[in-house]
Every structure is written in structure tokens, then in C-alpha cells.
């Protein structure tokens, strides 16, 4: 992240922004965008980054959606071509953006564990498994049981991290574990839901995935989006710092 190239040049009471952002989630709906921009090339890369709020209706801003493997345009490329941004839109101090970003990231790593969603999805997995008749299949049920233990263990890990933060102790050394485990669990429950539906996860009927659709389902109505969700969840071990990068960071905390 410190190697970012989007530049913001201070000219009078404006910044002129040039560059490109990628993987901007839901950018096609955004009205404003928070951007990390390079405002100085002096010193270490981290010390020349600023945090700017940019109106996406500004001239020079172009948004190009990227369709993901589930067929949905969830992320975007955002291009900045001599975009003028009032200096009032600077967040905090110039060249202090890295500090603000790190603060946000520390919260991303606990949020991204997404324990509460995992608990809800585990409930939904059990409902689907029961409806599909696989909850009584020991083999399938054991897989759900393993996932249940994983979710509870992750919840305990998150509670420990939160407690340490509250008490003022630094615990970023296990925060990386939250992202790794959280993403793996997300992938596993989405996978098990798809497998529970089995053959009935295979039809791809776009209308059937829309909210409020009342047409004929192939299999049960809940089967329609399961494979698409499984495909979409493959991103979780890639974004937010890939799990490979996370493991390198964790390894450093152990090995130095």
C-alpha cells in the first residue's frame, strides 16, 4: 500500500489528483470516495501519503465496473484525470495519511473476521442441510460440526483481541490470524451450503436470485444463489491482504 502511485499536487487551494484505483467495491454507486494519495516523494514512502475525500461527480473521475466470476459488477476501477479537489477535503494533516490508514486497517482486521455473520450463516447452513435431507447424513453433519467448532474458536479469538484493545494492550500480533481464519470460515460455509443443495445448486437462473422473485424454482428457492455465493467468497482469502501475505506477517511475529 505504501507504494501507491496516485498523486495529488497542491496548487493554490486545490489538490490536482492523477492516477487510478482498483478493486473499489461498489464504486459504481459511490457519490464520494476516500482516497490515499501521494503528496510527497521525500523520505520513506509511508511519510508522503495523504487522505483525501473526493466528490465522484468531479470532472475527470471515471468509473469502470469489473464483473466478477459470479456475474456481478461488484468492484470497479476509478480513474483520476486532473481531478480538482478542494484543500478542505484533506482528512487530518497532509502526509499523515499512512497513520490514519493503519488505524482503519487495524479495525478492518477484526471486522473482517465477521464472526456474527459466520454464526448466522452456520444457522442457515443447518437449515438448508435439514431441508435437503443431509443433516442426518453423518458425513455431512460432521463437516458442519467441525465448522461449528471453528466458528466458536474464532469468536473466542476475536473476544480476546477486543478485550486486549480495550485494556490498552497491543495485540496486533494475533489480529492477522483473524483475517486468515475468518475468510477460511466464510469460504467453508458457502461451500457446504452449495454442496448441501448438490445438483440443485447447478442451475444458473439470474431472475431467481433477485429479491422477491416468486417464480418456479429448480429445487428449492434457497438453492438459486448458493453456487454464486460460493464463487464470490473465493475473494475473501485474496482481499484485505491476501492470506499468503497475512501468513508472512504472522510468521514474522513468531520468528522475528
Amino acid at each position, binding site marked *: 500500500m505504501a507504494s501507491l502511485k496516485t498523486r495529488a499536487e497542491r496548487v493554490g487551494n486545490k489538490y490536482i489528483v492523477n492516477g487510478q484505483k*482498483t*478493486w473499489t467495491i461498489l464504486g459504481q454507486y459511490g457519490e464520494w470516495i476516500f482516497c490515499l494519495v501521494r503528496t510527497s516523494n521525500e523520505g520513506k514512502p509511508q511519510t508522503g501519503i495523504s487522505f483525501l475525500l473526493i466528490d465522484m461527480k468531479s470532472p475527470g473521475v471515471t468509473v469502470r465496473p*469489473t*464483473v*466478477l*466470476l459470479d*456475474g456481478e459488477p461488484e468492484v470497479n476501477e476509478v480513474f483520476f484525470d486532473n481531478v480538482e479537489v478542494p484543500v478542505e477535503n484533506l482528512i487530518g494533516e497532509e502526509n499523515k495519511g499512512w497513520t490514519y490508514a493503519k488505524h482503519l486497517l487495524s479495525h478492518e482486521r477484526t471486522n473482517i473476521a465477521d464472526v456474527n455473520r459466520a454464526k448466522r450463516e452456520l444457522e442457515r447452513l443447518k437449515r438448508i442441510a435439514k431441508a*435437503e*435431507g*443431509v443433516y442426518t*447424513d453423518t*458425513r*455431512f453433519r460432521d*463437516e458442519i460440526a467441525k465448522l461449528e467448532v471453528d466458528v466458536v474458536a474464532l469468536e473466542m479469538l476475536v473476544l480476546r483481541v477486543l478485550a486486549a484493545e480495550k485494556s490498552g494492550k497491543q495485540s496486533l500480533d494475533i489480529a492477522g490470524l483473524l483475517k486468515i481464519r475468518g475468510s477460511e470460515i466464510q469460504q467453508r460455509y458457502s461451500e457446504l451450503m452449495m*454442496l448441501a443443495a*448438490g*445438483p*440443485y*445448486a*447447478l*442451475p*444458473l*437462473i439470474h431472475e431467481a436470485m433477485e429479491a422477491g422473485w416468486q417464480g*418456479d424454482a*429448480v*429445487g428449492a428457492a434457497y438453492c438459486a444463489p448458493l*453456487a*454464486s455465493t*460460493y*464463487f*464470490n467468497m*473465493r*475473494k475473501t*482469502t*485474496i*482481499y484485505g491482504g*491476501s*492470506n*499468503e501475505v497475512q*501468513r*508472512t506477517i504472522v510468521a514474522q511475529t513468531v520468528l522475528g
Partner: protein
Amino acid sequence: MDFDFSDDQEQLRDAVRKWVDKGYSFERYRAAVKAGGFERAAYTEMAELGLSGLYVPEEHGGMGMGPVEGMVVMEELGRGMVLEPLKQSLIAGALLAGYAPEAVKAQWLPKIAGGEALIVMAYQERAARYRLDICETCASQTATGWELTGGKSVVPAGDQADAFIVPASVDGKIALFLVPRSASGVSTRGYGTQDGSRAAELSLQNADAALITLDGLSALEHAVDIGIAATCAEAVGVMDKTMAITAEYLNTRKQFGVFISSFQALRHRMADMKMQLELGRSMSYYAALKLNAPTAERRAAMARAKYQLGTSMRFVGQQAVQVHGGIGVTDEYIVSHYFKKLTQMEMTFGDSMHQLGEVASRMQDTAGVFA
């Protein structure tokens, strides 16, 4: 043991590979997906190469070939992610040749070989999941033949096929029937599937049918086993191509000033993927070797093969996306399509968990390639 392919088998492989490389590009695949997942012209081209009649006996206009030739063909089609279900023609050709009365054989086998008739298996029912012995569709005898009433799901190219092979219950016992799509009482509802190919729901209301065999469950199991062997081979082709795409990307993409193929974590991952590919290839060979074995041995062997291939497919598909990073989850770039194909294949003819149960229930005291 000799695992070398004969000259004829190599020539067959080359012919199919040439057709895929020159005639079935990613663009053609994309266009077919957009148009609904089935392009008849592509199927006809495969028939013209003799592929639809691969398992049809020569006296009925086919090539009269065996499991190894089928394996070679399916591998090559897998490499190109060919959407049109040639695999179903392999099954139909072998099934009718092995189990149908002479009149049915004479009427349909030449059409399969010639490409005029695409015949597909229509056996999936809601209550059955991956089991073959549960069948609610029923058949009743009439003065002129048979009538079928019931429904089948996720029938490959169901609204495009010319006829269906349908299990239906006769006095509580499963029998196998052939139902033309043009028969009265037949209706289909077509849709695309996750890997881009086409499928349909089939509805039968007193639909006219020709009997293939009253010994339906054995025939159905045999048909599925032919399908499993074909799917295993196809998966080897898909995984092989997936690995090649991934290796090229890792050796081309730079991050932090170096090629990402230099990162040890990714090198080890590729080694693990190579392991799964080769174990999968080995078990695809095993499936081809065992496809003509006595029934119990064949069933056990296909379960083992599909379990290994399912495990391999899942790992190779998931990891190929992972090591690509963000581009791996985009629709524009090719690897996600290979991943979705592998996902769908894992869930075809019984997923890995189902096959594990099959292997477990058939276990003997000893195990090996020849036991």
C-alpha cells in the same frame, strides 16, 4: 504395465486437440454461454470427427472404440471447456448398444453416430440426491408401448436434446426407457448452469416411451459409471489447462519487482496442485482400466476414481484462483471459468462426500489397483 498410447490413440488425441485449439476458442465458448450454453454447430463438428459415435458399434455406423479412446477424447475436450455434452453421447451409445432391443438399436445408434440425434441421460430427481435407486417417475404399459409420468432435473442440454434415457418405476422396480423430445406429453424448461453449459427440467405426462431394459438399475449404474470415467478424464484436461494458465501467469506477473513465481509459498502451492493433477490423472487411467470390469469391481473402482478426482478438482480449481490474486475472481480473465467448470464437475454423478460413502460401503480387507 504399459501406459503408452497407441499410434491410433495419439492420432485421435491430435485430431481432437486440433479441433479444440483452432475451432473452440475462449471467444466461441463465451459466445455460446451468452447464447444459452449450447451451440448445435459445435456438437455437429464433433460428430463429424466421429466422436459422437465413439462407443457406437461399427455395425451401427460408429467407431466401436473403448474406454481409453473415450478417456483421450474427453481429456482434450476438457482442455477447451467444450460446453456441448459429448460425454452424454458416449453414455447413450454404449448404453443402447449394451442393453437395448435390436429395434431400438437400429433406430437410434446410427443417428447418434451421425450426429443427428443427441441423446442425454435424464435421471436426476429431487428426492434422490446422488442415489440411483430412488425413482418416483413411473411407467405404465399401454396397448402400443409404454407411457411415462414424472419429472427429471438438470438434464444436460435438456431442451436441445433429441431424446432422453429415462429411468422409471415399473411395479416398484426401476426400468430404463428412451423418450424422444418430440413425443407427446414431453415438455422442457431450459436454463444455463454455473459452468456455462445448458440444462433443463424435463416434465413427462403420459409421454410415449420405448423400453430399453426392465433391468433398469444395473443399466443405470453402468451408464453413470461410463459418465464418471468420462468426467474423470475431462477433469484431467481441465486441470491440466488450468495449471498451464496459472504457471504462465505466475511466471509473467511481477509484484514488488519480482515475478510472483519466485515466492516460495506459491511454488509449494503449485507443487501441491501438480500432486493433485497427477493423482487425478492416475485415477482417470484407473477408471478407464476398470470400466469393463465385472460390475462390483467396476462400481467400486469408479467410486474411488471419482473421489480422488473430486478432491483434485476442488483443490486445483480453488488454488488456481487463489494464486492469481484479484484477477482470478474476475469474469474477464479465463481462470475463473475453469474453476467454475471444475466445481460443477465435482458435483456431477455424485460429489466427493457421496463417493467417499460409496468407497466406504464397498471396502474389503485389502485394497490395491488390482483388488
